[in-house]
């Protein structure tokens, strides 16, 4: 089945629908075009009172009623923080409230735990040293809820257990976050180029929520490194409406970077 929108566009629209009016959140760090598009699209459609803090810069931004600015890969780029900026604070003085947050990683496991530190079972001899933790340990603990989005859906990324846990999903399963008195509710969705996953309430294990149009169940199962919970009835991810696509392309992704981002 051929669609008239790109995978990254679909992912941005799916994430955008999760954000609520009046919220304050952050798009996270690198490869943030999808998260940023989701936030700006929400502001320009159903959530005109939602604002975002441009990551560690402490700049608070809002795009309603302003000229659109192209999506950029780095959230802390000067142009990105000035687009729609209404308050220029710094790391220390910015509001710490995060109703929502977006994360990616080197590995994500069945409980939504995230690893950005490195790949390998021996810390002293990593197969691949990653960038570190950034703000993952804190943000995943305190953000009201967060969304995991991945540019690939593969066994390498979606693993049974992360080699290092520096972003907190549901840790060991039900009750883990509660025992640690974490204020945030944890990961809500995992959105990939193939599907949307959520977490089953009783087990806090990742569950297939919907398949993107044209994607088969087998394709998702074959590319996931653990046993996904598969519901009896698997819906198809709701395609972007013409209004969502129009707004996304004319007011958010004006340089059209999303269509070619994920093949």
């Amino acid at each position: 089945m051929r669609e008239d929108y790109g995978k990254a566009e679909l992912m941005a629209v799916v994430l955008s629908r999760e954000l609520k009016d009046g919220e304050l959140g952050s798009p996270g760090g690198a490869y943030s075009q999808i998260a940023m598009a989701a936030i700006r699209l929400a502001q320009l459609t159903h959530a005109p009172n939602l604002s975002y803090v441009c990551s560690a810069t402490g700049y608070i931004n809002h795009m309603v009623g302003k000229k659109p600015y192209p999506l950029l890969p780095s959230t802390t780029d000067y142009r990105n923080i000035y687009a729609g900026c209404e308050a220029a604070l710094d790391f220390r003085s910015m509001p710490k409230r995060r109703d929502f947050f977006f994360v990616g990683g080197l590995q994500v496991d069945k409980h939504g735990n995230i690893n950005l530190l490195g790949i390998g079972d021996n810390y002293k001899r990593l197969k691949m040293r990653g960038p570190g933790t950034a703000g993952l340990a804190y943000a995943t603990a305190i953000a009201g809820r967060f969304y995991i989005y991945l540019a690939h859906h593969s066994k390498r990324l979606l693993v049974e257990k992360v080699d290092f846990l520096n972003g907190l999903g549901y840790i060991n399963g039900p009750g883990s976050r509660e025992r640690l008195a974490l204020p945030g509710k944890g990961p809500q969705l995992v959105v990939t180029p193939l599907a949307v996953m959520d977490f089953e309430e009783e087990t806090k294990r990742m569950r297939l929520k919907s398949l993107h149009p044209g994607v088969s169940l087998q394709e998702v199962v074959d590319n996931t490194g653990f046993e996904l919970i598969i519901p009896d009835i698997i819906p198809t991810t709701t395609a972007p409406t013409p209004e969502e696509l129009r707004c996304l392309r004319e007011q958010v992704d004006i340089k059209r970077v999303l269509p070619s981002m994920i093949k």
Partner: protein
Amino acid sequence: MSRRKSKVISLAEAAGLVQDGQTVLIGGFIYHNKPMALIRELIKKGIKDLTLVGCLHGAIDMDLLIGLGAIKKLMVPYLGFEHLGLAPCYRRFAEAGQLDIWECDEIHIISAMEAAAADLPCMLTRAGVGSDLLKLNPDLKPFTDPFRGEPLVLVPAIKPDIALFHAPKGDLYGNIHHLGSPFADLLAAEATNRCGGKVVVCVDEIIAPEEVWQDPRKTTIPHPLVDYVVEVPYGAHPCSCHGLYGTDEAHMQEYISMGGKPESFQDYLTRYIYSVTSQEEYLERVGGIKKLTELKRSISMEEYL
């Protein structure tokens, strides 16, 4: 009456302030507002045995020092080039087990700075609870809140001997103006100053004090927290200086590809650091006025405002 003292020193003098074995903090964020010209001077003089603190994230600034073998201990929450790639020397050294890494979240660095700034031995945070960071970093101490019994983490103060920053502007007394995000520079300067360390701010331009007096609200780091000011035009290159010029992504990509092997890393050092005698010569080497104009224009937002 004695005169108010100028804090302006030369780049060479600034490099002379940094000693082997010190705890050195670098401000800015990833590849924004980094004191690159000063770091190149440190590399030239063969600095070594540093405890390097990133407040906050790092990229080429710290990766160069790692590649040089100058780092004894690394305290940084993120070291990488975002969409451009992973940090090549960090990878090589960390994967070979040759780097002592103080694994942390950005909030641990912030908490350690807050502790130093408040003259406290440590600071309390929720960051790290439930994560493997507590296993990997023995300095992050689990602590139970005595009121409600919540699991928390204590982070010891970090006390830099010297902190290095880059900002767009400042006057000769050390009043600093940022034109974009100051990131966590103010806190890092306060922490360093409070524990007796030296604060060095490189600026693209030294401005007249009158410009500071006209609108004191523009000052982002106040003079009592700054010990030295160094004027280095385009001193953040190849990083961006928020508000003045963008990141030289082509140069970053060249660095990332050359940093992957010791031999090509040496070629990079020779080409852009050892064989260059001044910042002016460096700017010529990386593309001269044409490149710099392009980087200035790259952050223009005129058509969108």
